[in-house]
């Protein structure tokens, strides 16, 4: 169980790790993305979701890594795992409905939680884009078949659009029952976690609304960064900050701030190997 003494001094990314961890429940099968979401899943597993099963795209199910996971195909994904299998089998289990929650990011999101991680048209189009993004990867599959998804994306007007340029990952499409109509019988986003606030979705219209703002953030600030006429919850909450316990664990999970800072830029090989050695001991 969680220790509810709140931490004083934490970074934004540390805050986001705890925010994502709080969206996960015990006994869930979690399709973890890279970076902050992975840390969130690992943190949840070390606190309130000890029986959660983490799945990584390459084919590792239920690992118990004693180190940070540097990507969805990193070895920690099969470290002491319950099942080492293949990508197609793991995604098939998700299509069958065995995965409770998936974590997604993207470059653009719209009011119905549709995500774009493929291309930004700018003055061009799909064939001659202003910016070519990496592509869907597994995001479309997670968005189509996970029982629910969490979206993590920075709050910026250019990212929060009435309609994304290109739907890489379906949210609620045009809202209401339009998702079911195209043949997606389950799923859809349950929340959008940003650097300033958390959005949730209206059960009927499926439109995103402001549910909570992070400490020190105003509702107006949020509305200014959204391109549509944002609906706001009648009782907007303040997002719960990290507890002391959570913060301690995050710093154990990512001691060199590869995710929670810019540790990646300047880490040497020697420091990296030491980090791994120490991580083995600290768990």
């Amino acid at each position, binding site marked *: 169980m969680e220790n509810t003494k709140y931490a004083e001094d934490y970074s934004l990314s540390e805050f986001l790790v705890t925010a994502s961890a709080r969206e996960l429940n015990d006994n869930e099968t979690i399709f973890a993305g*890279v*970076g902050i979401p992975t840390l969130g899943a690992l943190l949840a597993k070390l606190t309130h979701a000890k029986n959660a099963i983490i799945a*990584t*795209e*390459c*084919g*590792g199910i239920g690992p118990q*890594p004693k*180190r940070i996971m540097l*990507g*969805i*195909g*990193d*070895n920690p*994904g*099969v*470290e*002491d795992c319950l099942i*080492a*299998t*293949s*990508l*197609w089998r793991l*995604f098939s289990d*998700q*299509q069958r409905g065995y995965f409770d929650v998936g974590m997604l990011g993207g470059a653009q999101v719209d009011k119905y939680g549709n995500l774009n991680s*493929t291309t930004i048209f700018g003055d061009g189009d*799909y064939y001659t*884009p202003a910016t*070519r993004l*990496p*592509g*869907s*990867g*597994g*995001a*479309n*599959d997670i968005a*189509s*078949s996970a029982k629910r998804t969490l979206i993590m994306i920075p709050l910026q007007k250019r990212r929060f659009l009435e309609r994304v340029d290109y*739907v*890489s*990952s*379906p949210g609620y499409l045009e809202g209401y029952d*339009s*998702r079911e109509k*195209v*043949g*997606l019988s389950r799923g859809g986003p349950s929340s959008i976690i940003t650097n300033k606030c958390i959005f949730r979705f209206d059960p009927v219209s499926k439109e995103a609304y402001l549910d909570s703002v992070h400490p020190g953030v105003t509702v107006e600030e949020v509305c200014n960064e959204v391109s549509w006429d944002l609906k706001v919850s009648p009782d907007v909450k303040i997002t719960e900050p990290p507890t002391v316990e959570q913060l301690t664990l995050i710093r154990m999970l990512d001691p060199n701030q*590869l995710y929670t800072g810019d540790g*990646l*830029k300047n*880490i*040497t*090989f020697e420091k*990296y*190997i030491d980090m*791994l*050695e120490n991580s*083995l001991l600290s768990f």
Partner: protein
Amino acid sequence: MSDNLKKKADKRMSLGEAVAELVKDNSVLSFSGMGGAQCVAQTYEVIRQRRKNITLIGDSPCEAGDLLAGAGVLKKMEIAFCAYAVAGLGDNFRRAVEKGIPHKIEVEDYSNYTIGLRFLAGAINIPYIPSKSLLGSDLPKYNKNIKIDKDPYSGEPISLLPAAHPDVAIVHVSRADMRGNGQMFGFSSNAENMARAAKHTILTCEEIVSTDEIRKFGNLTIVPEYCVDAVVELPYACHPWNMPFAYAYDIPFHSKQLAQFKTREGFEQWINEWCFSLKDHEAYLEKVGYKRLNDLARIERKFCKLNY
């Protein structure tokens, strides 16, 4: 020719020989690995032999996709994702698609699972396979090979994916015998289906072992000899990426590499220094340094001990 190779009892070749013999210009290529276990040495060899007009089919072939794009080897990519995940974006891929540097590449977008299903359909030799992915998204709008159809049993909407049959699959596993029976420790991404779906398969492995050793653990054999044309022993083939139960991810190396890829000049320098000016993978390993490689293997064993 293919059948003769697939029936040989000793299929060992050097990587150079295997690529020279089997990988032709204007052909369709696939590499195993996803996130980790990526075919880096194999990609460098294809570049070293200056192949042209290659179509690449893969889920998220970061290293292969970005390096081949930068080296001007590719005509088309049928993929779900091209970037180095934590280490950074695929700047060569972006330059090719956005600015046509070194030349334009046609991209056909899929998702990781639907590429996986295309290899499954290819492996079991059915012309297409249905899925619930891609419904409602914009992928089918721009990719005519994805068909939105109705399930003839229920009338429900379903997406259809065409089987993938690459001319050559280059598949990397933990170990194999010289007949081509390949065993994998840890995740296998789509390796077992790529090997079966392709017309020709080059099986590379960290270690060649006896057939008797393979027989001790028949449940671990994911690639059968009858679909393999060549077997190549290729230790540390994935460096800087990780290989399960073998070596850890060398992310400091990758960070330096990708910093250099930010500019076209930087990439050209890199590919000359790390590919063209090196005779083979052996020379690459010498250049990386065996002390460093050994450290990556040593640290991995502390986290994942092999019980086979």
